[in-house]
């Protein structure tokens, strides 16, 4: 892997497009911008075509003889199945309104990262093969042949789109390049051209129920560790249940939150909240993934992975489902799940057993976002909160792409944060809510070999954080997304060192005053609460524990 340039070097970006036209500028695979190719084993696990040993850096990608035919046939099929795809292929006027809205363009200056041009990579082949004008006029009509270099260009640039939909907000016709990227990735998958970082987790999820491949005992074990920590902080021993039939609620989180900091603190927060409420709920080791890397592969793969949630809800006989904090997970749950795997007529319209609120907005899917659930609790005064415990934090909130532009859950997390923290500051209005900027690592791009791309793509987000750091002294970046919790810490370290990253329910649990708890001296991270002076002994213990947790995770990963 090449060395990633330093931040000040990387931020010198040239936006001037090259002299040669884009069709005449061949793709160049830059180190640090692309992910390793999918492994044969992952493809075999889910029965995907063309499993083989290959590397994107190779000249020869070991494609079947008739690869063009396969792609064009797949292209046609999708044009007939998706109105979005057909219409978006036809109506772009190349006005350029979307051009500078993509974080990858802002961070890299590469014109093929302008959403419109990313789409044209595919559209040009569409015109060449499926339109009269393109067939007759060729290049004049913006048409081109599907060649090997074009295929490689597709692979390179469609894995430089995080499917964030920001471009779609500004397009006068709502053209969503994310939708086009999804189609392109489906076509690439017909030839076995995925990335390892996506096809690996998808295969894991298929066989073991979650992306990380955590087996049943690893899930219970990880949660057990969290319970130990909770006990030492609060003096309360929580006893959650797994795969329990007859529970009222099934709880599904992104598996990243079971595995690594700071996501685990979010899970601890959720465990504490549900315990405090006495909620009749269960975890599942079979449906142990809310996220969906199948979604970054193909519609069909996404549906196959998603099916487990309803199947498990049915098997366990629960009444409804709560989903944890995650971005793309909620795009899928909100806009796709019911269509794919519904109707969930064996469930009941979700009703909070604590407040009696019926979640009308989820009356068909029967699945409620935990932020909706918690906001409702706070509104009804059901939680005893002491926001002073979060007084050392100056918090800002990062809207995840999917939850803002593919759902619209904007106020719920803000309402919660404002109730559990005293210091909350918004970032520049052009970088939040529906205009939010991606973390730069969404849609399965959060690998390590493409770190330069991620740091570039994350620049607009990081820069908006930097702004509130300078203005208000912000030191904590809250979010409701597991990929954010994995991707933002390195992004902050790179561009804005000193800013922490947290899930919203970690903040909730820190402020939550639980029945029978001992006087808390630390937060969930084991750091002293504001006003508490840590003895040297305590500090040593805390650091030991951190090291131990790190070692433990390493062992499990290995």
């Amino acid at each position, binding site marked *: 892997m090449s060395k990633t340039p330093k931040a000040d070097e990387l*931020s010198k970006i040239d*936006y001037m*497009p090259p002299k040669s036209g*884009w069709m005449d500028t061949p793709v160049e695979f830059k180190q640090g911008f692309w992910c390793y190719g999918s492994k044969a084993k992952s493809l075999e696990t889910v029965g995907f075509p063309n499993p083989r040993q290959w590397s994107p850096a190779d000249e020869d990608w070991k494609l079947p003889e008739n690869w063009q035919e396969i792609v064009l046939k797949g292209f046609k099929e999708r044009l007939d*199945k*998706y*109105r*979005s795809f057909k*219409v*978006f292929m*036809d*109506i*772009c006027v190349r*006005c350029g*309104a979307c051009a*500078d809205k993509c974080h990858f363009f*802002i961070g890299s200056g590469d*014109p093929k990262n302008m959403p419109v041009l990313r789409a044209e990579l595919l559209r040009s082949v569409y015109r060449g093969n499926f*339109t009269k*004008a393109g067939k007759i*006029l060729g290049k*004049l009509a*913006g048409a081109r042949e599907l060649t090997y270099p074009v295929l490689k260009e597709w692979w390179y640039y469609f894995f430089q789109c995080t499917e964030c939909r920001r471009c*779609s*907000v*500004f397009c*006068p016709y*709502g*053209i*969503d390049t994310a*939708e086009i990227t999804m189609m392109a990735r489906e076509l690439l998958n017909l030839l076995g051209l995925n990335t390892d970082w996506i096809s690996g987790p998808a295969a894991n999820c298929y066989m073991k129920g979650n992306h990380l491949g955590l*087996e*049943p*005992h690893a899930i*219970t074990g990880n949660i057990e560790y969290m319970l130990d920590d909770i006990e030492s902080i609060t003096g309360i021993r929580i006893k959650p249940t*797994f795969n329990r039939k007859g529970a009222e609620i099934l709880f599904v989180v992104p598996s990243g939150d079971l595995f690594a900091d700071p996501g685990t603190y979010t899970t601890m927060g959720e465990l504490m909240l549900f315990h405090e409420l006495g909620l009749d709920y269960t975890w599942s080791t*079979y449906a142990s993934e809310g996220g969906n890397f199948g979604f970054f592969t193909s519609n069909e793969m996404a549906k*196959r992975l998603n099916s*487990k949630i309803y199947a498990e809800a049915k098997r366990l006989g629960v009444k409804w489902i709560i989903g944890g904090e995650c971005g793309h997970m909620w795009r899928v749950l909100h*806009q*796709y799940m019911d*269509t*794919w795997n519904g109707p969930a007529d064996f469930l009941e319209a979700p009703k909070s057993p604590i407040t009696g609120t019926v979640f009308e*907005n989820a*009356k*068909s*899917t029967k699945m409620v976002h935990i932020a909706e659930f918690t*906001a409702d609790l706070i*509104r009804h005064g059901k939680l005893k909160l002491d926001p002073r415990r979060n007084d050392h934090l100056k918090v800002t909130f990062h809207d995840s792409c999917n939850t803002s*532009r593919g*759902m*619209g*859950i904007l*106020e*719920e997390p803000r309402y919660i944060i404002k109730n559990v923290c005293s210091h909350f500051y918004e970032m520049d209005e*052009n970088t939040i*809510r529906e205009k939010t900027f991606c973390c730069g690592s969404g849609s399965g791009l959060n690998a390590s070999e493409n770190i330069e791309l991620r740091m570039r793509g994350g*620049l*607009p987000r990081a820069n908006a954080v930097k*702004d509130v750091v300078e203005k208000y002294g912000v030191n904590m970046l809250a979010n409701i997304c597991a990929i954010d919790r994995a991707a933002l810490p390195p992004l902050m370290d790179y561009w804005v060192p000193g800013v922490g990253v947290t899930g919203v329910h970690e903040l909730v649990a820190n402020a939550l005053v639980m029945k029978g708890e001992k006087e808390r001296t630390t937060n969930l991270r084991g750091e002293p609460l504001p006003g508490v002076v840590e003895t040297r002994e305590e500090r040593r213990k805390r650091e030991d524990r951190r090291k131990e947790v790190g070692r433990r995770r390493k062992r499990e990963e290995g």
Partner: protein
Amino acid sequence: MNALLSLVAVIVLILIAFIGIKVASLHFLFGVVIPYAAIATFLIGVIYRVVKWGRTPVPFRIPTTCGQQKSLPWIKQSKLDNPSSTSGVIGRMLLEVFLFRSLFSNTKFELKEGPKIAYGSTKWLWLGGLAFHWSFFVVLVRHVRLFTEPVPSFLHSIEVLDGFLQVGALGVLISGVVLLLAVTYLFLRRVFIPEVRYISLAADYFPLFLIMSVALSGILMRYFLRVDLVSIKELTMGLASFSVAVSLEKISVIFYIHLFLVSALFAYIPFSKIMHMGGVFLSPTRNLANNSRMERHINPWNYPVKVHTYEEYEDDFREIMKDAGIPVEKE
């Protein structure tokens, strides 16, 4: 290069009409046959395209949500930017189609030393686009007077509004001038903004030049070259009633050029990006309500897929599950 080619193409079109009338005297061809053929191509082509779009299924409900969702009753929903009902969607679409709302919120960014990225609002494209489309529309409506007798009264009011500028003795109609200016602006931004130039195809310049030449020839005809208005109206009325009975030679060549360019434009529409005028209504990210969790959306081609069932999972992990104290179906 793309721009030049498109310009040449339009000049060739003008020459064809000029030679066709002046040299070959093909008045009937240019005055009757081609306009009919163009209108037929336009109608059949547009209908074909729209029907084809309309027949393509919408498997998922995928609105791009640009505001607060409808959730808890005490949280204020953005009814227009994140509609959950049909009326909200209609509102969103109307604002989009008539006022270009998404373009209105356009921004530009600037990367400064630091690095520091600053965002600002930019309304030029919105303004230019709005001026272009609306003036085009008014010009089109004004032409209805050529096909009606008596001329409907609403046209008079439009012309009064449109013609409030008096230049000398001549009443200038604003719409034509605005159209020409707007189309020129759209052309210039394509040439001078590097990113936009980079993405522009010949197919982007061609319609601009075509419309520019249509507007220019129209303006020339109206204000500068004398044309036989009575004969023109006779021709257009004839075209509208399928009974052309006027001596076509009386009409001057500039009219034929104008008519030929308009015909070319109409015939070109179904094969071009100008179809966006129909497509915008069918865009699934804009014309659907965000109510996927409230009402199940049906995918007409939803098919069963291979899944890894719980039973298979338990078979893989039964002993592990038992050891971890997790209940199992089969002991």
